[in-house]
């Protein structure tokens, strides 16, 4: 083993070079910027070193709003979308007729452009002078009163964003879960049937444990993906997310760099590091929890 070590590193060089240049170096750089006060990327100068950037960001109401939005988005959409995807996949794998048609329909959002989907959601939800939008028409038909989903109250906008996010991530999860379900050896189901196991118990005691690695994978990637949400909010509410009160953490980082109020790489770096720390913590918690509940 010892002897081969040099060779091993040699094989790793291509990957290491790319990861180093495009991942590790920027990461370290961002980490350094986050401590440099008032860093200017043009002149490459700064006034001092300290925690000021962090304290500024953590007191910035826009950041706190973005933090709240992101957390809500994560907490609502990840369990809902995974659960919904599981439900649909189980339903899909238990039908025979039209299975392929349904699979195609459920997969369509995956190949559709985010902005195009945003446009469709606008038509569904947007209240204009001429029309209340399809959803509002439905609400009115059931005796409710119209809500301005795009420019109205916070909860209404959050609802649209959550529905949108769930709809966008669903196809990938369904795809992964359907193949996981298909890979469960049917002999387990036969064995369970001979023993008189109810359908619900088969699902809970056999199917779910057997596909738990996949479900867990979807949870972890779902968490990370939702924390990094940005384009979804843009597609729905435009680029002035701070004004709409619908900014996300990644959106905040972007605005700090390039937005109308931008040009503050130090604040952006601090916010990015905070996001990184949060994602890392949550992922670690996920891994710890999974030890108990995931069967390999």
């Amino acid at each position, binding site marked *: 083993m010892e002897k081969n070590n040099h060779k091993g590193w040699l094989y790793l060089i291509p990957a290491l070079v790319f990861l180093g240049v495009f991942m590790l170096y920027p990461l370290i750089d961002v980490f350094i910027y986050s401590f440099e006060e008032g860093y200017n990327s043009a002149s490459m100068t700064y006034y001092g070193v300290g925690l000021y950037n962090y304290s500024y960001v953590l007191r910035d109401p826009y950041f706190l709003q973005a933090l709240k939005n992101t957390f809500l988005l994560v907490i609502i959409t990840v369990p809902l979308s995974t659960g919904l995807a599981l439900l649909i996949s189980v339903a899909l794998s238990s039908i025979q007729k039209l299975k392929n048609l349904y699979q195609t329909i459920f997969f369509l959002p995956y190949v559709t452009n985010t902005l195009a989907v945003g446009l469709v959601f606008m038509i569904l939800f947007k209240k204009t002078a001429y029309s209340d939008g399809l959803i509002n028409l439905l609400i009115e038909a059931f005796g409710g009163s119209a809500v301005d989903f795009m420019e109205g109250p916070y909860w209404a906008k959050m609802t649209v964003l959550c529905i949108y996010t769930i709809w966008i991530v669903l196809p990938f999860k369904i795809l992964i879960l359907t193949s996981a379900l298909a890979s469960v050896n049917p002999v*387990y189901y*036969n*064995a369970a*049937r*001979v023993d*008189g*196991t109810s359908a619900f118990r088969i699902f809970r*005691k056999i199917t779910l*444990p057997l596909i738990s690695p996949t479900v867990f994978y979807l949870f972890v990637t779902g968490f990370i993906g939702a924390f990094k949400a940005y384009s979804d909010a843009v597609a729905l509410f435009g680029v002035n997310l701070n004004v709409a009160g619908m900014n996300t953490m990644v959106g905040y980082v972007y605005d700090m760099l390039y937005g109308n109020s931008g040009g503050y790489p130090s604040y952006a770096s601090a916010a990015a590091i905070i996001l990184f720390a949060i994602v890392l913590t949550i992922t670690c918690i996920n891994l710890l929890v999974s030890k108990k509940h995931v*069967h390999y």
Partner: protein
Amino acid sequence: MKVVLKNLTKRFPNHKKNAPDVVAVDHFNFEIPDGKLIGLLGPSGCGKSTTLNLICGLLKPSEGSIYFGEEDVTNLAPEHRGVGMVFQSYALYPHLTVRQNIIFPLENLKGAQKLTKEEMAKKALQAAKLVQIEELMDRKPAELSGGQQQRVAIARALVKTPKVLLLDEPLSNLDARLRLQTREEIRRIQKETKLTTIFVTHDQEEAMSISDYIVVMKDGILQQIGKPQDVYDDPANLFVAKFLGTPPINLFHGKVTDGMLYIGMEPVLAVSGVENQAVTVGIRPEGFVPDEEGPLSCTLKNVEVMGRDVSVVSTHEFMIGAGIRSIIDADVKIDVAKSTVRFRLKPHKVLLFSTDTEKRIPFTTQVSHA
């Protein structure tokens, strides 16, 4: 609990359009006596597993009915039939421990049958003791050897005290040595529990060695049912004769003329009660006796010494197949230098079959080598 199959038929739709259905099981009629071990035997694809799945209830028959004792179970779901099934791949739930696997069927019981935790644990331990795995209870299936997994699967099938135990190719995933051990184990468990047990196998030796009765199948059609030795000695047709026995039966083109059986020009055996006709002659390997004066002369190819007995490989102009393999006592010396070997035949090891229907042609005989 005796098991009765009446006219049992299973057809599967053909994948090709407008092609006739595939008949996996074709009008089966047989009765399995209570408390016996039955081997369903046949080559791959002959419908053995389908038959087992029909008895188990995982498949619905296209026609016919199944009785457990006096009760018609044809339309009962598997869980209401009281069957225990051991699958070919064992189907142990990989995420559960041995104990949890064995308890699993008990946890499904509802209503009056419901058991307390203590009762379940007790029953599981009983089943585990029966198959001698009580020290493995907290392991996962992946941590067990093939033979141990097999035992766990049997314990799981037995824990609900089924009326009928079904085993699908129970030994096919084990190595040769374990196979011998496990088949005796299955025999022991069956004797201890006195359960009517049906197992499927394509290995005739396996079926012959432990079954009370064997059921020989081919292409979905029942060929013969009987005690292993009876089926071996008295096969109904050429297929059964060829399928049973290792080494397999030796076949020749022959003819019967005026009560004498000829292989080629040589009169080999006096057979009475057979009309003059061309026949397929089957001679079991143990039916050859080396004899300088014997009527059947074969070209000697090889002599394989196996210790207890000797296997003589020879050829004959009118044989069917690649060679004649005869097994003779090691005490009899064969002169390997000679190019021919002469045999006389043991009459009860000679079987005649019709050349066109392949059905057995019975004959009576007097000792003919006077």
